[in-house]
């Protein structure tokens, strides 16, 4: 575990607690300024087998603890009109438990959406002993056949699945319990909150609850159901709300069947739904300022705009564990955090701009305020370790550098814009094609002629400046070294092929009044192919004070030819004055 040390550190680890033994998930973790001291505390609904509890942490130190009767489904904090500090709502089974100052305050049961009256009547009848157990069973069974088992309450469902032997006992226990028989089939799957109206006035939030059947909007002041909607597209598994309840708002609903449903509700209650048709199961999603980021089970990240139009898709190649919204106001950074098995990538738009690596596998992440740090990232690991990280104030994300595509094949070539001149030229070319071609051909001919004539002049004078056919096989290079008045000429001959066996000499021609050579003629040894032989000759500038320079010619003579075999001319540099 720990951050990757490469590059500038953008994240700093504040607290890390190994093996907290908190069995929790993202939905059961939240942070809130719950004690009103300005410090955001971590609230965790713990589902540990020993017993479910709500735990309040300052940092990662336990400061409060409340018992919970049933396993929690989700936990949210919300602002209520009359409370100074946020309240906590925990979804349990088919109801919502409200806690104030970490003490139980209210239990809000959710009414089933479309309960069958016949079912209520039947149960009422047996309670009031108007019908007997046999009639109850037949009636319920009849309802089951007509509406399906799912439509009936849990009690009915259980009763219908009992064997005939067990039924009388079940009835007696049910009836002996003085409490009212609660005929409900509501199971909460997710809970979230949304703002009531525009403006940050002291208004209570709306709690949005998704159940197996549909969505409930619950007023957090009176705990009445403001609206409900039956989701026919599938079973809601996760929801995310955006917008304002009294105006237009949207719910993004992940369906258990593997799709996403986008629900739009206008203030007056009109509802329209739209299924995205992902054909894959959704792992997590989040909403950034520009888009929705949806993580799918097939390792792909889908980026959509807020209206649900898919912009792009990216396959990350490994299991995506979680996603969360990232926002860093001081630098106006907005993006999404995508948690993979051992890594968290920070996406700005569709580009990875930062990456954190961890040794422990990640179970969930939550970005938001924690403690006094407004930009912290809480990471839960599979082994129940929890770490809290903060985005450094000095952390700078270079979007430009990150936007450079990693693969060079994707690099855009720097092609300059077509200038007006270029375009004009193209038009000109198109219109005067024939004329251009003919003048080009004529000029080409002239140029070739020019080259050929110049070449012929060189070859026919037999000066040897251009290598003859035989000399073509040799390569002779000449170097002149020294500052003067003494210089040294070195000649290197290298043969590519065997040369005829004749005697050859190097000869030097120069202005005798200005220069003096050590040797006028240097005999050349037999030229053997692919060997280099070096010759050297000293040359002295006689009057360096004059500062004159003149040409020196070097010839390679052969006994079987009259003209030189090879010639080169070079100009001597200005000589330095002698040291004496």
């Amino acid at each position: 575990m720990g951050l990757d040390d490469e590059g500038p550190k953008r994240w700093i680890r504040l607290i890390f607690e190994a093996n907290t033994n908190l069995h929790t998930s993202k939905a059961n973790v939240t942070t809130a300024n719950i004690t009103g001291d300005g410090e955001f505390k971590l609230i965790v609904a713990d589902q540990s087998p020993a017993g479910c509890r709500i735990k309040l942490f300052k940092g990662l130190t336990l400061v409060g603890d409340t018992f919970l009767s049933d396993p929690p489904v989700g936990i949210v904090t919300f602002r209520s009109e009359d409370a100074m500090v946020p309240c906590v709502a925990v979804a349990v089974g088919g109801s919502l438990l409200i806690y104030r100052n970490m003490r139980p305050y209210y239990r809000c049961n959710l009414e089933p959406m479309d309960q069958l009256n016949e079912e209520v009547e039947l149960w009422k009848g047996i309670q009031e002993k108007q019908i007997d157990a046999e009639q109850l069973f037949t009636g319920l069974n009849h309802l089951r056949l007509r509406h399906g088992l799912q439509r009936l309450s849990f009690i009915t469902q259980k009763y219908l699945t009992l064997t005939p032997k067990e039924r009388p006992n079940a009835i007696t226990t049910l009836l002996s319990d003085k409490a009212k028989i609660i005929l409900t089939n509501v199971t909460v799957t997710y809970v979230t909150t949304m703002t009531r109206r525009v403006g940050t006035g002291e208004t209570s939030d709306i709690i949005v609850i998704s159940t197996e059947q549909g969505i409930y909007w619950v007023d957090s002041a009176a705990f009445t159901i403001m609206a409900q909607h039956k989701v026919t597209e599938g079973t809601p598994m996760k929801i995310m709300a955006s917008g304002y309840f009294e105006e237009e708002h949207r719910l993004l609903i992940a369906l258990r069947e593997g799709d996403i449903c986008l629900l739009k509700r206008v203030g007056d209650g009109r509802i329209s739904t739209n299924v995205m048709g992902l054909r894959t199961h959704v792992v997590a999603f989040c909403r950034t300022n520009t888009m929705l980021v949806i993580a799918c089970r097939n390792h792909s990240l889908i980026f959509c705009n807020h209206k649900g139009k898919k912009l792009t898709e990216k396959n990350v190649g490994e299991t995506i564990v979680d996603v969360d919204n990232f926002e860093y106001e001081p630098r106006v950074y907005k993006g999404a955090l995508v948690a993979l098995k051992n890594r968290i990538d920070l996406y700005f738009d569709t580009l990875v701009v930062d990456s954190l690596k961890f040794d422990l596998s990640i179970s969930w992440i939550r970005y938001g305020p924690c403690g006094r740090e407004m930009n912290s990232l809480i990471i839960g690991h599979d082994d129940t370790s929890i770490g809290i990280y903060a985005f450094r104030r000095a952390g700078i994300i270079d979007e430009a550098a990150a936007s450079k595509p990693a693969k060079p094949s994707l690099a855009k070539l720097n092609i300059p814009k077509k200038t007006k001149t270029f375009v004009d030229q193209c038009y000109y070319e198109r219109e005067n094609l024939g004329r251009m071609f003919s003048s080009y051909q004529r000029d080409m001919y002239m140029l070739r002629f020019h080259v050929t004539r110049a070449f012929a002049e060189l070859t026919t004078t037999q000066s040897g400046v251009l290598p003859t056919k035989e000399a073509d096989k040799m390569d002779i290079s000449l170097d002149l070294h020294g500052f003067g008045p003494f210089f040294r000429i070195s000649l290197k001959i290298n043969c590519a092929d065997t040369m005829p066996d004749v005697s050859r000499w190097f000869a030097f021609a120069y202005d005798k009044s200005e220069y003096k050579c050590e040797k006028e003629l240097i005999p050349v040894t037999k030229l053997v192919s692919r060997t280099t032989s070096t010759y050297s000759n000293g040359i002295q500038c006689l009057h360096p004070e004059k500062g004159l320079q003149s040409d020196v010619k070097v010839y390679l003579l052969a006994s079987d030819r009259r003209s030189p075999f090879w010639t080169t001319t070079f100009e001597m540099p200005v000589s330095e004055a002698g040291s004496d």
Partner: protein
Amino acid sequence: MASAKVSDQLDPFYKALLTFRINKIDECHEICSKILERNPLDQAAWSLKLACFTEEVFVDELENDEAGLADTYMDDNVIATAARPGTSFARPITTGKGPSPAVRPRSSTGRPISGMARPESRLKTGTMEQALRTSRTSRTARAASSSTARQVRLGTASMVAQQDGPFVNLGRLNVEKYAGDSQVNRYLFEYVFMHEGDMRMAHQIAAVATKTADYKDWYWKNALGKTYYRLGMIRESEKQFLSSLKNTKMVETYAYLSKVYARLDQPISALDHLNAGLEVFPNDVTLLTFSARIHENLGDLDASVTMYKHVLRQAAGNVEAIACMGTHFFYSDQPEVALKYYRRILQMGVNKPELLMNIGLCCFYCQQFDLALGCVDQALTAATDDVSADLWYNAAHIMLANCNTKMAQRCLRLALAANPDHAESLCNLGVLKMHEGNNYQAKNLFTSATIKGPNLFETHYNLALLCSHMGFYAEALRSVKQSLALFPEHVQSKQLLSNLMIQFTQP
């Protein structure tokens, strides 16, 4: 006839002044000689004659900056031996601001080729040993020290001009007397400095004159600075120029200061002084040009181009700026824009073969085919010895583009006949030979090309490639390493190196 009579009636000295004014130096010379024959002590005529001598050999001292081998490699003024990139001419900016050598060829000094041929700059390419090993014929050699290059030629010029002994016998000149005379001393100084090239005497005159002027005349301080600069006493000249600035702020002084700092290998200070100068003299072309040159030498081509643009806004006819802009656009893939710049130079009356060749090449690469080859042909006809090798080399490129390898080979042969040390031609000829299958010949050509042009990464890479084909792996490895030393980002060289490394790894 009438006018001749009028001119005869003129006072001879006035006439001499007039002829000098309209730049008829020879006539002025004659008239002054006549006056001096009549009255050898006429100081006015004597001064004018000195001015005539100076005018004949006048070289803008600001532009006269030739650094010899000794100055470059045995420089005792350099402060940091391992300067940070961008703070020294020896370490140009490495952040990839400049174009890659694969796009814009490098000059023999290892910098991206410039639009303007300037005196040898001071970049050290390789070690001194390497510099000494390079063949030193007059075309390739850098002078051993700065006191030899142009100054010697100036000295010779004075000898040719005055067959019957020098006009002023410096050995017998009463320096104190003449240098203290404010009427004469400037002409005398310029004569000695420009014409005679006798720095010791020039320094003496300047020193006396400075003293006479109560250390208040910027001209004499600059004069002292110039002589110190020529004598290689850079720190002293810096002092003089700085003190001159305290007297009077002159454009020239700022430019000299930048030159001094450039010589001291402190480009940043040089730029600072130029900027200070530009604050006093905003938009001054000289200062802007100097600044552009320093940026170019530092490898910051973008800044250099901005400066040249600035220059052109002030002086639309600045050939150096136009040429540099042209080169910039040509190598940034906009030959049609470059063409406009070169055409502008042509319109201004410059009619040089290299310019025609540039226009031809621009036309060729921007598909203006009706003009392209005509210009090239004209350039080749008008070729002079010093550029003909380059012209033939470019002609070879055009031939290659026409798939005429035979003609291309001939062009390259002609280039090599004009200048046997033309490394680029050797390299390209080698490539053509290699394609023909004459591997040994190609190898020889590449080998000599690497010797003649140690600044070219292409020759090393080609040699390495050929050697690896021929099975000379050790040689190939050596060459490819040299290629990568010159151009570390060269992809093909890297690939070749990794391929070669396989040959050298133990199984």
